[in-house]
């Protein structure tokens, strides 16, 4: 017969993984993709747009980076109904995480775009490209290589941060663990199990990051930095 703790872990593994599959994964993936898109737009505005626009996006980044994520989630889910905006838990969490990823990734994207040598813009222009073509074909692909390590960090943090959504009633994996604790009174075992699942997810993602870096490094990086 299996020891009690192992039996409990096995019994709860199904519900936990199900919650991870149905809530944690979609919340992470959706808010990362939307957040990156937002981050790219914000970065481009900060780098290239005129004053009022840069001021607006700087204000946004300042607010998001300067306040706790949990407080932001509470404001969106519990605070906004007071002004007539009522959101379901999942969309509220999605908006919160997207805004968060957008702010942090915009700083990363801004830095990596600026790190591409100016001569690459000139080379792109010299063969007749316009700004969007130079950006898309020449600058972003090179910036992307440099962005992989810091953006992977953002992504791995996000996987773990989605556990905060439990506090605004999203039934993701951590909340599933809490519910089982409520009936079994085994917090130590269940929370260790949840922690192990987060650890496994993060480890898988780190491995994928290494693969992606190797793939993007095949051409050897900026030429100028080498000479």
């Amino acid at each position, binding site marked *: 017969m299996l020891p009690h703790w192992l039996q409990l872990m096995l019994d709860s593994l199904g519900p936990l993984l199900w919650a991870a599959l149905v809530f944690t994964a979609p919340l992470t993936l959706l808010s990362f993709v939307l957040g990156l898109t937002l981050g790219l737009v914000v970065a481009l505005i900060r780098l290239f747009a005129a004053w009022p626009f840069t001021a607006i996006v700087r204000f946004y980044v300042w607010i998001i980076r300067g306040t706790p994520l949990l407080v932001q989630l509470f404001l969106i889910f519990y605070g906004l109904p007071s002004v007539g905006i009522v959101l379901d838990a999942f969309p509220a969490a999605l908006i919160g995480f997207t805004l968060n990823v957008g702010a942090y990734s915009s700083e990363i994207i801004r830095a990596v775009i600026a790190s591409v040598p100016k001569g690459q813009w000139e*080379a*792109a222009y010299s063969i007749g*490209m316009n700004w969007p073509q130079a950006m898309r074909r020449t600058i972003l692909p090179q910036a992307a*290589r440099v962005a992989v390590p810091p953006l992977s960090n953002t992504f791995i943090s996000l996987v773990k941060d989605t556990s905060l959504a439990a506090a605004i009633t999203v039934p993701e994996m951590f909340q599933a663990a809490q519910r089982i604790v409520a009936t079994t009174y085994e917090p130590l075992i269940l929370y260790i199990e949840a922690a192990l699942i987060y650890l496994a997810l993060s480890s898988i993602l780190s491995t994928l990051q290494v693969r992606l870096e190797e793939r993007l490094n095949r051409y050897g*990086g900026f030429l100028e930095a080498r*000479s």
Partner: protein
Amino acid sequence: MIELTDIEKRFGDNLVLQGVSVRIAEGGVTALVGPSGGGKSTLLRCINLLEIPTSGMVRIGDEALTFHPGQKVGWASVQKLRRQTGMVFQNFQLFPHRTAIENIMEGLTTVLKWPQERARERALSLLEKVGLAHKADAWPATLSGGQQQRVAIARALAPSPRVLLCDEPTSALDPELSGEVVDVLSQLAREGTTMVMATHDLRLASKIASEVVFLEAGVVVETGPAAEVFGNPQRERTKRFITTLTQK
């Protein structure tokens, strides 16, 4: 005919070019020479508008643009003029994330919307011309400086520009590697490619230039056929400069 008329370029308070006028005949090689900071590179970059002149006029063939202080020119007209030119940079500036052949195809497929196959054929024939057909699929980082510059020349020639602009094409190379670049450029000169090059390299200039423009402190000091300017400079300043170059 390439015509620069009364070109003035300011960077803030710094007047880099003051009323430079040059006429460049097609089919020949014009070398822009002179001391560092004299405005050679800036003048060259004013031809393809990587630097926008503060005032003056740039004409390449039938395309012309006039500039006035504080007045912006539209992107479309800048590009129209720029597409008459190709440029070779001092530090090559190949796209590191594309192979040699992809570097050459890039302008053809992205800008001119050529089909892949046609662009590949054109790129391959240019690689053969610069003697690097065997390096078609190499990453730029694996090529020597001389090879990178030869790929860069092929990339600049791909859309058949009216004029090839070379900004110190051999300055980043040791004499041995610069030799292979000089060979490619002189072959192009023999074929009648119109070139304008800013250079310190007297070997390069005397070997392939037909005309010379000597610039100092943003003004044209002397201009004329290469043999005359190098062999029998009229101005004292030009004489001194050429003596220091040949002493090396």
